[in-house]
């Protein structure tokens, strides 16, 4: 229990620092991107298990393209970002080809994507830079940070909200875009229809195959965005352990949020607290390893709570239907 006491004590110290909240927003963003990417696919009931692999590979691609174009001095990072998105979309398409046209289990395809993504990126990095660990030698640069006028001058709040990378802001804007896309557009409606009852969609002439493919392509593209975020915003280089499970955490956040962007955002911020917390290890007596493990432990606990909650909800719903049926019978 002394561990928990120590965590609470450190949290109390850290929670007053604006830099902690800044860090929170910064570190929740890539998980948020990953989770939103998973959400589109999940809504079409096509689990994108390969998010981690897509992020890893596109993170490297962004760095390579950027450095080839001269890094921060030119448009390098921007082009890197665009190429990363395109490659992500392509990988999403590949998953759909293997899963729906060649009929391989989509979870297995995802796992293969993760293994290939991590393996191929380290191989490629070694081949092109001669370095097995990082691409620091490439000077690939980062995307610009933005100081928000007015808000940046507000004490505390300015320090928290201003001066983030442009992609960080976009991650949170994407929550609204995604909500709009899924719940207000025709394509979003079809994605949700296919995800919930494929037969219903097919019976009115909607090709579930096409809809699922589109969903996975979008999912992969957002995965590319998340990958570029990690190597062009979070850090300024690619390293072999860069993604470190963020794709999987995104997947977890997506299912905890029932693939609804708003709830997903809250889950990601909750996870972000612990990611940010682990950056303030120096302020505590805790082992750095324990702190690094903390976000994952929290994800696990979160998933358990979520599963208990949904089971209760489902039971309640069934009971509701039950009593309705009985009352009708009596009438």
């Amino acid at each position, binding site marked *: 229990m002394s561990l928990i006491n120590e965590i609470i004590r450190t949290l109390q110290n850290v929670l007053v620092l604006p830099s902690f909240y800044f860090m929170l927003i910064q570190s929740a963003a890539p998980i948020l991107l990953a989770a939103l990417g998973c959400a589109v696919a999940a809504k079409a009931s096509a689990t994108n298990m390969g998010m981690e692999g897509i992020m890893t590979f596109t993170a490297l691609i962004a760095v390579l393209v950027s450095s080839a174009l001269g890094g921060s001095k030119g448009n390098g990072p921007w082009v890197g970002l665009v190429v990363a998105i395109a490659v992500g979309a392509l990988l999403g398409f590949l998953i759909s080809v293997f899963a729906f046209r060649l009929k391989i289990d989509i979870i297995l395809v995802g796992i293969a994507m993760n293994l290939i993504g991590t393996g191929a990126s380290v191989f490629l990095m070694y081949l092109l830079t001669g370095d097995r660990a990082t691409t620091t030698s490439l000077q690939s640069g980062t995307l610009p940070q933005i100081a928000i006028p007015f808000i940046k001058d507000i004490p505390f709040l300015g320090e928290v909200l201003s001066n983030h990378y442009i992609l960080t802001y976009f991650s949170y804007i994407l929550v609204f875009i995604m909500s709009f896309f899924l719940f207000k557009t025709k394509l979003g409606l079809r994605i949700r229809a296919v995800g919930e009852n494929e037969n219903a969609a097919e*019976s*009115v002439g909607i090709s579930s195959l096409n809809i699922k493919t589109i969903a996975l392509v979008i999912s992969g593209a957002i995965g590319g965005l998340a990958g570029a975020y990690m190597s062009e915003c979070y850090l300024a280089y690619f390293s072999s352990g860069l993604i470190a499970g963020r794709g999987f955490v995104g997947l977890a956040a997506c299912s905890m949020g029932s693939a609804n962007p708003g709830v997903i955002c809250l889950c990601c911020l909750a996870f972000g607290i612990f990611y940010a917390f682990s950056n303030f290890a120096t302020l505590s007596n805790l082992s750095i390893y324990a702190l690094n493990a903390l976000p994952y432990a929290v994800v696990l606990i979160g998933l358990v709570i979520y599963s208990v909650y949904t089971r209760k909800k489902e039971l309640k719903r069934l009971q509701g239907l039950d009593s309705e049926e009985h009352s009708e019978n009596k009438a």
Partner: protein
Amino acid sequence: MENYLVMQDVTKIYNNGIIANDKVNFSAVKGEIHAICGENGAGKTTLMKMLFGIEQPDEGKIIIKGKDMKLNSPTDAIKAGIGMVHQHFMQVPSLTVAENVMLGIEPTKGLVFDMNEAVRRTKECCEKYGFEINPKAEIQDLSVGVKQKVEIVKALVKGCEILILDEPTAVLTPQETKELFVQLKHLRDTGCTIIFISHKLNEVKELCDRVTVIKKGKTIGVWNIKDVTEADISRYMVGVDVDLNIPKAPAQPKENVLTVKNLTVYNEAGKKKVDDISFSVRRGEIVGIAGVEGNGQRELIDVITGLAKYSHGSIVLDGKEVKDMEIADLREHGMVHIPEDRNLYGCARTMSIKDNMVADKIHKDEYNSGLFLNEKKIKEDTDRWVDEYLVLCDSGEQLVGMLSGGNVQKVVVAREFTSPSKLLISDQPTRGIDVGAAEFVRKKMVEMRDAGEAIILVSADLAEVMSLSDSLIVMHGGKINGYFKDVKSLTEEDLGFYMLGVKHMSEEEIKGALHE
């Protein structure tokens, strides 16, 4: 009146060689409600699937408004003005009524789904045909009856002129059924042609204008509803071709093995499927259970075999209440079960014949030596059973999935019959298997009976039920509608009457099913 829809000499042969429709003829005029009646497996659903473009006929023509139509998909059928209300609703539960109705033909403003327009059009359609549905309600919050209306509106909004309803009342309460009929009649008066598939003859009689009867994939005839009685239709539908002629001595029933008392079973949605029934099965007799599918037989067998739980009434197997028993306990207690779906519940298709045959005995000492399985004993026994049960295969190592349906069933039968037991539940034991294998299974069952086994036989094959059972229970609407102590005195015509609920027995007679 001009024929609006004609299906001419339509033949459909499935890949496994089953002839589902053999030169079936069907026609309907504008503005009529036309019933299609037939037993399970008579080919009604196949015929309708072809009309709705889900299946394509091998031979024959579908003519709508004088035009020869090729319907390759439901989309084609919808374009041709055909709508279908499936037994399982094609709806997305979390979406609203309007979204479901407009799915596939979504109104848009630029990229955005135009919800207001969707609601307006849904409302318009509902008002036109007299349905009271809130377009903004979510499907998952609606009762089954309303969901079905949504399904009808879905078809109407796409301009459907021929509406197919596949056993629409199976899921409805009597009140909902009444309401549906009023609406269907109204729909007919607006010029819509309705095809009503059902085996509830009282409903057919009440609702429809004409009836086409199909038996074993062939059209028996078309009648104006006012020219036929329920008994007539039943006689046309039900028919036993051959006496199976199974050599069988009269049963010598002894004491009760299974006693079911006042059993009531609700399904997951809380609908009453088995309604206060009592009966018993004695040592040395075969009790048949007959009934049109969906009248509670499935649920009854599920609770007796431990696949589902019950809360009202009691089931006593060999002196012990089975309520809280796991399936393994039940089997230990002397229950064996040939399940209806052999591929799903009966065997593991990716495992060998040998493994499947010992699957229910593998925990016994004789098949284990220390930590390991006694492979020698397993091989000896299964090889012997393969011979004894005439399983046609290369060896016991062959995968069950490679065998024909009849041989798969023999593997299941071998496993169940070679375990010591007191009660055998035999659910559709010969469905879809060849004549030779079927005869073998039936003969084995009679042998088991003579050795003192209590047997319950559920079968949609009336010839089988009538010639194999010693006594017979007929189920209708979740209740026992008839009990025949001696099947020999029962005519197939009478059986049809009881199955379809045309005739009912008195409570006193039904009580005979329970032997005290």
